[in-house]
């Protein structure tokens, strides 16, 4: 190793310095290449969407039945997105938390199998999840529904929340875990009233990231909630969502009103997703600061 190192770092010559500088330059170019789309997407969507967003009608009215007609808003899609994602969160979070606790605190062969399932699920294309719900729920019920959409989004969220909750539970500081044991707490008491509360901000971060993932999903909704041009709160009916509305209007973007509607909805969706995403990041950053003296 020593002789190799000597050979590698033989007396400084210009070529190596040039190579080092070239590396930095290439890396900087790569970063700029990656950030161009970010700036371009945000800038373009903002510039084209802000006009629709500025009118209150955009949030309080439903779109016209003819996509190419001007006017109207995206109320049905906004409400549908919030309702379906909300229900998906209510379904996914308890299951995810249970799976995470099972994997970390109980263990065993069954926990390993469940862990493997979560890994598989994490890598599954969301469109396949949509097909699952289509063949099991939609076909059985005989119609598309907001409920089916919620179930699909719940499955999309499940691995995101489970994996992050697991990571947090694994990080429970050892002195605290030992303290809980020393107090004579039963395992389940220790988990539920010590470990979970300690990791709560981390678990919430995972939930927020899961929500921000699910809320932007289009593919699984095509086969489950289908979309609906009218406003509905009924989970038994087909339900509109912001991504679906963007998709359908984008495909009709030859018509200026449809195009504008797509951009307005895209801006709204980006703001919602980024809101959840940044809130999650902020919580993580805060936890790191608080935990830095550990």
């Amino acid at each position, binding site marked *: 190793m020593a002789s190799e190192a000597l050979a590698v770092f033989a007396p400084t010559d210009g070529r190596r310095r040039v190579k080092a500088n070239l590396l930095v330059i290439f*890396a900087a170019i790569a*970063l700029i290449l*990656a950030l161009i789309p970010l700036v371009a997407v945000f800038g373009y969507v903002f510039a084209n969407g802000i006009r629709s967003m500025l009118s209150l009608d955009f949030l309080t009215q439903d779109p016209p039945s003819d996509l190419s007609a001007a006017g109207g808003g995206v109320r049905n899609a906004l409400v549908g997105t919030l309702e379906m994602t909300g229900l998906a969160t209510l379904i996914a979070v308890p299951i995810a938390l*249970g799976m995470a606790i099972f994997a970390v605190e109980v263990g065993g062969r069954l926990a390993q199998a469940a862990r493997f399932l979560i890994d598989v699920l994490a890598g*599954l294309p969301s*469109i396949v999840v949509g097909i699952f719900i289509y063949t099991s729920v939609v076909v059985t019920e005989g119609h598309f529904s907001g409920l089916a959409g919620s179930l699909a989004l719940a499955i999309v969220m499940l691995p995101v929340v489970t994996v992050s909750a697991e990571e947090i539970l694994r990080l429970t500081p050892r002195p605290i875990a030992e303290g809980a044991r020393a107090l004579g707490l*039963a395992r*389940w008491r220790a988990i539920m009233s010590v470990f979970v509360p300690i990791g709560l901000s981390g678990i919430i971060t995972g939930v927020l990231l899961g929500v921000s993932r699910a809320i932007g999903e289009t593919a699984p909704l095509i086969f489950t909630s289908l979309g609906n041009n009218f406003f509905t709160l009924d989970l038994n009916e087909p339900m509109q969502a912001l*991504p679906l509305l963007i998709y359908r209007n*984008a495909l009709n973007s030859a018509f200026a009103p449809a195009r504008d509607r797509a951009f307005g909805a895209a801006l709204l969706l980006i703001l919602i997703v980024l809101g959840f995403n940044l809130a999650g990041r902020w919580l993580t950053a805060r936890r790191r600061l608080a935990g830095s003296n550990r």
Partner: protein
Amino acid sequence: MTDSVHSPDNADAVERIGLRRRRWTGDLTFRGVLAALAVATTLILGFMMVGSFVTAAPVYEKFGIIGFLTGTKWEPSFTLYGAWPFIYGTVLTSLLALLIAVPISVLIALLLTDLAPARLRGPLGVAVDLLAAVPSVVYGLWGLLVLVPVIRPFEQAVAGTIGKVVPFLGPPTPGPSYFAAAVILAVMTVPIISAVTREVFASTPRLQREAVLALGGTRWDVARTVTLPIGRAGLLAAIVLGLGRAIGETIAVTMVVGNSDNIGTSIFAPGFTLASVIANEFNEATETLHPEALIALGTVLLVISVLVNAGAITIRNRFTGGLRSGF
């Protein structure tokens, strides 16, 4: 974890306050509930997977598994279904995307672990991560209205010059194409690959990196002798993870890939991927066996992505196992 409360010394005390009994039943119930939850979730998801194969069964029966996978004709009006054009499209777009995304991601990861000033690393990292937060339908919208018009002249220029000699770069060049899909996929996989790679690179031993610098090595030497060789397995896992994402990406691809059931011999030709043909044709699938054939494509996608992700998990486990024994 050993159970210190149950040592013989305080066994009496434990018995007296009834701790042991309550604790035992409580823990048993807790475990039982969690196990039931895990079993139920596993069963439900397993049932759903089987359900999609059952729904697709008539298609596999009619054409045979091999016949369906290798069939090159997809003509719903003639009840003719072959998956090959879409498998081809998925493989072509994903590999092209990786070709673009991997070098960029590796350089970004190096930049954010070794090269950039420490103060810039955090904000730049967040900016790259934000690329992953943009919903895919928004990328699709942007790709359809901005990217495709921008790259069409480029496609035409390449097809008109180099494309006359090199087989995969010729016409047609309508704009929406495998290539456009690959560019969008590259944008979407860069944050995933670079995030994992960055973690891998950051976990390479700091002492070795500093030793190289102390020996008079440049930052290029650090990357060449420490970061890249040690991070190689993790980098591979990151790439496979990005591949999995690219294979399954649906809506953004649907909006820029050109939507053609034929096999395009040029990367600038319009086509379809497995995921995008399902999304695009599903709501209008009225011909005989058409919905079942699309679900059959879904099962192909399912098998491919499970295989790819199993690969990524295996590599990751070997990598972390190596870390544990190696350091």
